[in-house]
């Protein structure tokens, strides 16, 4: 009864016309951003955190959810129409969709992508709502030892997932992030660590300017100097696909939705892994006739990729909300926005912020409906947008990086930090190191540090075997951490 009342209260806030308008603004910005080649979802999320600083708690959350939902879909538009994926997860959609566009079926390919995204979001949201109570219950059993292991697993698995066949590079990126997170006053003794006499560093290094630098400025440095490919606006044609055609792919959609949600829940594995994996599994599972079409313009392939990358949104929110561990870099931006608005994410989210979870569910549902409507409405304006060169658009993002990093704490030091992070991110990128593990580690570092030292104090007079027996959840987590490293070092290394 209490929960129903809470749901109704949050629904009343979420359905306020101002909230719908803000969500619409977020979705529209997200779709346009995602549609522009070179502008990724994470970049959109990182930069728009700055804009959300001036908003109230609920408005900021609604805005960020709108941007997240819109930008994940947006990549499909340019992928189909101009054969350049707006976001990396739209590569499978590009392979199939552009072939269809060349046959004059671009509109239908986009319509299938929109429907796939809509279904994917629904599957992600339903699974999120279903599993949150169980994970929250489990998370409440966690003590210092378990929280430490969970944080370390988050960083390790993120490294493995982000770096592909060189997980060691992902781990190095994560461990450098850990070192960055240690800068500042130590939480237990108040000792200044790695500040080298610089007073500003005593407050620690905020991860928001880091996020903006690594995913905003680094992207600009990567993309702007490249020669701009010519935009090829094309005719769109019919958009809404026939219902019969969609029903044909319902099995593939359901399977891809589950894949996308599970992948989203694993730290570091985001929409790219989800859409690639779902596309690959879809090809293996497709009927003989359909399989012949893969790579030459298959609607089922588009459904697989788009359902998975959108279901990923719900999945990524699962560890973000319940454990405080972002499911991917875009979810890290959501986490930053939540923390900036004093929302304590993690096992105690329900008690410390009653109702906020329901608001997020409703926000995701509203954003999904708006995404569906706006996606259809924005296809034609997007075609016009593609005719604008990247060399015109990218410089305009530079002031947003500066304003966003300054707005967080009104401290100009953060702008310098953003710039340094952008340069470091570019160098790491050139050396083949992934960036998401570093951001995740900066977020999780303080949690790992504090909980490890607390756990060691608690265990001071205990034998290691009694710790293993008395703390079964910790023991399971320890095995998972060891297995993650084992898998990265031995199994994946040998496969290559």
């Amino acid at each position: 009864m209490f929960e129903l009342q809470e749901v109704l209260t949050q629904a009343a806030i979420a359905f306020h016309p101002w909230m719908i308008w803000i969500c619409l603004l977020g979705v529209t910005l997200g779709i346009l951003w995602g549609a522009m080649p070179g502008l990724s979802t994470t970049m959109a999320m990182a930069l728009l955190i700055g804009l959300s600083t001036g908003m109230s708690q609920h408005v900021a959350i609604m805005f960020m959810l709108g941007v997240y939902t819109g930008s994940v879909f947006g990549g499909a538009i340019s992928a189909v129409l101009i054969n350049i994926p707006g976001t990396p997860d739209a590569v499978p959609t590009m392979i199939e969709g552009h072939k269809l566009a060349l046959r004059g079926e671009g509109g239908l390919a986009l319509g299938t992508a929109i429907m796939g995204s809509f279904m994917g979001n629904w599957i992600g949201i339903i699974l999120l709502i279903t599993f949150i109570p169980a994970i929250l219950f489990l998370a409440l059993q966690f003590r210092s030892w378990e929280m430490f292991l969970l944080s370390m697993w988050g960083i390790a698995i993120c490294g493995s997932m982000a770096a592909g066949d060189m997980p060691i590079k992902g781990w190095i990126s994560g461990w450098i992030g850990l070192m960055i997170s240690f800068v500042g006053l130590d939480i237990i003794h108040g000792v200044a660590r790695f500040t080298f006499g610089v007073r500003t560093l005593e407050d620690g290094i905020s991860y928001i300017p880091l996020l903006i630098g690594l995913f905003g400025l680094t992207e600009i440095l990567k993309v702007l100097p490249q020669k701009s490919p010519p935009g090829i606006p094309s005719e769109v044609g019919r958009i809404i696909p026939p219902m019969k055609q969609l029903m044909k792919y319902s099995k593939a959609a359901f399977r891809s939705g589950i894949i996308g949600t599970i992948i989203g829940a694993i730290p570091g594995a985001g929409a790219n892994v989800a859409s690639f994996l779902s596309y690959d599994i879809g090809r293996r599972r497709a009927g003989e006739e359909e399989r012949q079409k893969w790579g030459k313009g298959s609607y089922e392939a588009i459904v697989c990729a788009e359902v998975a990358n959108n279901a990923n949104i719900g999945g990524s929110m699962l560890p973000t909300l319940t454990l405080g561990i972002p499911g991917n870099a875009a979810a890290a931006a959501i986490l930053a926005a939540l923390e900036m608005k004093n929302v304590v994410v993690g096992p105690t989210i329900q008690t410390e912020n009653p109702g906020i979870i329901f608001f997020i569910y409703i926000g995701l549902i509203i954003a999904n409906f708006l995404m569906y409507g706006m996606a259809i409405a924005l296809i034609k304006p997007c075609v016009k947008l593609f005719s604008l060169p990247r060399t015109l658009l990218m410089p305009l993002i530079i002031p947003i990086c500066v304003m966003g990093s300054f707005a967080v704490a009104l401290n100009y030091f953060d702008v310098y930090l953003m710039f340094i992070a952008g340069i470091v991110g570019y160098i790491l990128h050139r050396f083949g190191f992934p960036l998401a593990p570093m951001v995740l580690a900066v977020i999780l570092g303080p949690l790992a540090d504090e909980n490890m030292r607390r756990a060691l104090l608690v265990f001071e007079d205990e034998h290691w075997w009694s710790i293993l027996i008395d703390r079964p959840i910790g023991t399971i987590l320890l095995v998972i951490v060891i297995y993650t490293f084992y898998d990265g070092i031995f199994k994946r290394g040998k496969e290559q």
Partner: protein
Amino acid sequence: MADQKKSRLEADIESLEKGIFTGEEGGDERSSPHKDFIASIVVAIFGAFSMYFSLQLGAPESLYTAPGLLPFVTGASLILMAWGLFVKTRRRYGMEEMLKSEGTRAISAYLAETENRRTLLLMTIVGLYVIVLGQMDFDWRFKTSFYTFRFSGFEAISIPVIFVILRFFWRSTLLNCFLVATGIVVFLAVVFRDGFLILLPGAG
């Protein structure tokens, strides 16, 4: 390795065709054995420094709560990982490939590419922009009956910087670059300052 360089998009398409897991951000297509060799040395040095400075922090109460404990362990594991990267690269490509360095010619080869020169130029302009904006501290207000127009250090620096970047990269006419730079900076300033009540850098 260098002659086999692929773009991220090409690598993604290839991995999809072959069903190979390339990870969320990929990376192998951008690296080379020599780069990995350099990275392993730099990471090892970074790890050693971290360990050294962690030891300097001491242990105020006990070793278990020492502020440098986890940083020390992290530094040590970074050295191990650097060793792991070294060994893995050596196994894959051999020591000869790893040490194959063009010395100063590598720098000239890097600078010979237009894209790289443009990147360095962009880095310099953005760096100067950030430094100069940090020195700005004024906010002029012009009150009218319907609106207070404001001109701060942010607009004063951002408009010329964006103009210069547009001129270099977009290569449109002077007037076009100026109009776009002014329009976007003023628009952003109004949205952030008046729409969302966020203070701007360089505005006092």
